[in-house]
């Protein structure tokens, strides 16, 4: 009798530990899940397979602090001819005909309050690789944030590349 109680207690204890770890796993998984986009746009296809340069679509990334989401017009400039039969493209065409911009879901978000200035232009001018911060987009069918985008992430890279680390460079 005692024996069974002890055994079940021991088992319960270890089982609990395992469950807890698994729960951690689920928390992590949900927390890092990629948002569902209105159109199942695949970077793997465009950036990976077709080998389009990032700047081809995000064309202000090297001109402005803001990388820029491609205009619907830009999407249509190819897709009026290409893959018009695919349902996802037809969604796009619908947006275009309704003269509505596509409400993309924001993937990369700095969670802290907005006192940070980040210029895509400067980083590209400095020869930074898009995928260093945004992950291996060429392989992503669904984009998700892979980097924490926390200050440590920025500063480690800044220090590694001898970029300025004065607070005012980013904060203001």
């Amino acid at each position, binding site marked *: 009798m005692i024996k069974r109680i002890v055994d079940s207690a021991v088992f319960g204890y270890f089982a609990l530990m395992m469950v807890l770890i698994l729960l951690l796993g689920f928390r992590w998984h949900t927390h890092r899940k990629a*948002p569902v986009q209105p159109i199942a746009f695949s970077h793997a296809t465009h950036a990976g397979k077709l080998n389009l340069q990032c700047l081809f679509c995000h064309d*202000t990334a090297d*001109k*402005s*602090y*803001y990388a*820029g*989401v*491609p*205009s*619907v*017009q*830009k999407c249509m400039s190819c897709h009026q001819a290409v893959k018009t039969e695919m349902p996802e493209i037809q969604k796009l065409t619908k947006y*275009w005909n309704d*003269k*509505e*911009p*596509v*409400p*993309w*879901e*924001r993937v990369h*978000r*700095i969670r*802290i*309050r*907005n*006192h*940070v*200035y*980040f*210029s895509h*232009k*400067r980083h590209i*001018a400095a020869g930074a690789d898009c995928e260093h911060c945004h992950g291996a987009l060429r392989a992503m069918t669904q984009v998700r944030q892979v980097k924490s985008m926390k200050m440590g992430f920025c500063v480690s890279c800044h220090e590694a590349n001898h970029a300025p680390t*004065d*607070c*005012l460079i980013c*904060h*203001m």
Partner: protein
Amino acid sequence: MDRREFLGLLGLASGASLLAGCDLTRKTEKLIPYLVPPEDGVLPGEATFVATSCTECPAQCGMTARIRDGRPVKVDGLPKHPINDGALCVRGQSSLSRLYSVDRIRQPMVKDAGGNLVPATWADALKRSADALRAGRENVLLSGRTTGSLSALMSDFATRTGVRREPEFELFSYAAVRAANRAIFGADVVPLLHPDRADVVITVGADVVETFGNPVQFSTLLSKRRGSHGRNTWFHVEPHASMTGFQADHRFVVRPGSEAYLLAYLLQGLSGKVGLPGGVAAQIASVPAVSAQQAEEKTGLTTSQIDELRHALLVAESPLLVAGSVSTAQESGLDTARLAALIQSACGMHGKTLDFAQAQDYSRVGTMADVERLMGQLDAGTVGALILFDTDPVAQLPMGDKFGASIDKAAFAIGVSDMLTPTMERCDVVLPLSHTLESWGDAEPASGVVNAIQPAIAPLFDTRSNGDVLLSLMIELGAAAAGTTYQQYVYDRWTRDLGAGAGAAMLKQGWGTGPAKAAGGSAGAAGHTFTFAQSTAPSGQVLVIAPSVRWYDGRSAVLPLLQEVPDPLSAVTWDSWVSVGMETCKAMGIEESSVVELRGEGWSVPLTVRPQPGLAKDVFVVQRGAANPAVGWARSGGEANAVVAITAAATGRKERLSEVSGSLYQEGRGIVPGTHPEHFNGDHSGHGEPKHEEVSFYPLPKYPNYRWAMAVDLDKCIGCNACVAACYVENNIPMVGREQHLRGREMAWIRLEQYYEKDGSAGHFVPTMCQHCDFAPCEPVCPVYATYHNDEGLNAQVYNRCVGTRYCGNNCPYKQRRFNYFSYEHRPYPMNLMTNPDVSMRGKGMMEKCTMCVQRIRKARDVAKDEKRTIREGDLTTACAQACPGKAIVFGNLLDENSEVHKWAHDSRSNRILEELGTSPGVYYLSDNHVKGNGSHGA
């Protein structure tokens, strides 16, 4: 591409970038792209500029709007503009908050059965108006001062629709001045003043750096003769105490209404002059003689003062004398104006220091007589529809309420305005006006100069530009072809007046120069009998209703920003007050914040007292917009009375004023540069070094490339607060309101400190911002390293780090740090559109302060890096320096030997505030020449 369409797209884009950009709404989940990318190479996140015109006051300076994400976020003077040369006054800076004001009328309104104004459609409102205009009786159009195309269109409107166009209504109509100029110079204009060409400037009452003429132009020109070289001498004669007076080298306080005596006396001194125009000589002869002793007792000036004036005027090679404002807005005003004009003519200022060729055209503006005539007609009931076009007589006229009653007598009143003013509330239909930044049009600041007005943003609400309102009325009445737009009208007019293809040039440059009006100059023969000797000047207690540098004639008092920004003289922000001299206070046994009752005949108004050093005994000053007693108007000149006899009685009540100055005096702290014993022992060795050796626990800062620093020339500073307003707009500084001000929680990053001599003889105005000290006392006390000194000399504040201990604020000897007691991040629509995306919104519990416009430094660095160079002199300047009408602030790299700031910092007048504390500030002050004064002008 059609510009409207372009702006429409930008409008959409603005929504887009607003959501998408890393600017305002970090919390947003959506990322909205453009549908079609805008043309003209507009990049999201990059600023574009649109040249247009300021219309906050009749001066109509050239203005450029900085557009970010499709919305104007900052306005500044148009560089190289012939009138204001890149500067913009406090009102102009604040005019942006009129565009984004929450009080704007958002759609047409009509009176319902209950007599309340209710929202309506344009079609409905226009139809009602048109029916009323067709009703048959005589229709009248009363508008504020209009220039350029709008004025022309208004004439067309009047002729084609048979509406009688009344003389325009301006409270500051310059009636007396114009009358005098008509008589003496044969020109019904307000000439532009050229202090830069004058070696002696005498201003009688005219508040030339506040509202009179074009204050911005006067300030910019004056600053050319301020500072170190070629200084001229400026006498200001006034009955009250005005900012202009304290800026002058010599401020002579005269008894109210006695200006005429002084001028007559000065004129006699000139009568000996040879080569006077015939007519003028005759006129001079007709001036009743005034003896020196008479002049003294009438004006209350000392012999030496009068002689100094007289002497200065005699020996001056090219003097500038001008009378106006409160001095002409009284019974003897016309005489004062005529005497001034005679002196101008006698000294040959015409064409030299007075520019009649490039003058402000007030010919269409009427006088009080016109207003009274109109009221008569209204009361007689002969008027059918009355169109009140962008004017607010009810609030501004001394007999405002009567005028309001008269409006009701009109069969139908059509109001056109951007806000629901007292006048509009009495109208049957209110047509909402677009802001200038949403409109097409042009403005004529001075004859021969035409500013373009072009939209910087698609209309926020269902409003129309002033021209389009007129046109749509005309279309409704069948007086114009359907579909005609004001934009086209303006284009055509430009092409006609300025030549083909002028339109494009206008839009690019922002202004064009057309044929200037023929200047007057022939002495009018019209005789005039001077009556100032007979007319009884108000004696005993006198109320002076002075123009306000913030509110002009009161029209700008609706802008919260201009309530938040303090009055330069009294530092009062949100309240109405009456300024009372120190002697008077003693005599009446009143003090700060006690309420007095001002009584005139038929009116009385209770106001809170603000002691004002330098104000003569028994003189009470109220600013336009603070109170509007029914004081009547001067029959002779036709201007609303500004100087009237009253009786003031203390009520015993007390009410705290919301004011932001700790004290009006230095209390012996030697804050004003040049007044501290340690700075100057006899001669000033200057160079900003403290007298004692520098000792510091902290290592000397090292600045490899830049040491951003600022220099302020107090000799050029006119204390107008433009820098403050500019800073508010540029840096998203929250407007916290009266309650917080009463708690001393104002948020201004730069403030204008006013310190008066105990005897009120002089006032010093010191713009102070964070001094970015080398050894900043705020830095070592921060427990979280949120504030620190970066290697470019900036005293940085890292908002994310700040936990709000406020130690830094306590430790700052300059009291320049501001704490967010509440969250002001989220502004109500459309105010939120005014947010400058380059500057992050501070949150509740964070310290903030002047950053020396670090966002602009960053932008400049961005550009410089693209060009593979370092930041050069002239790449950037701060918002305050850019706005300054006196060109009194320079910003730059102190390490650059050739930079302006380096030169100024090493000027012999250079000082730093409280430098004896060893803080080694990065802001240098060039002491005011006339502060150490007592005649030591020039350097």
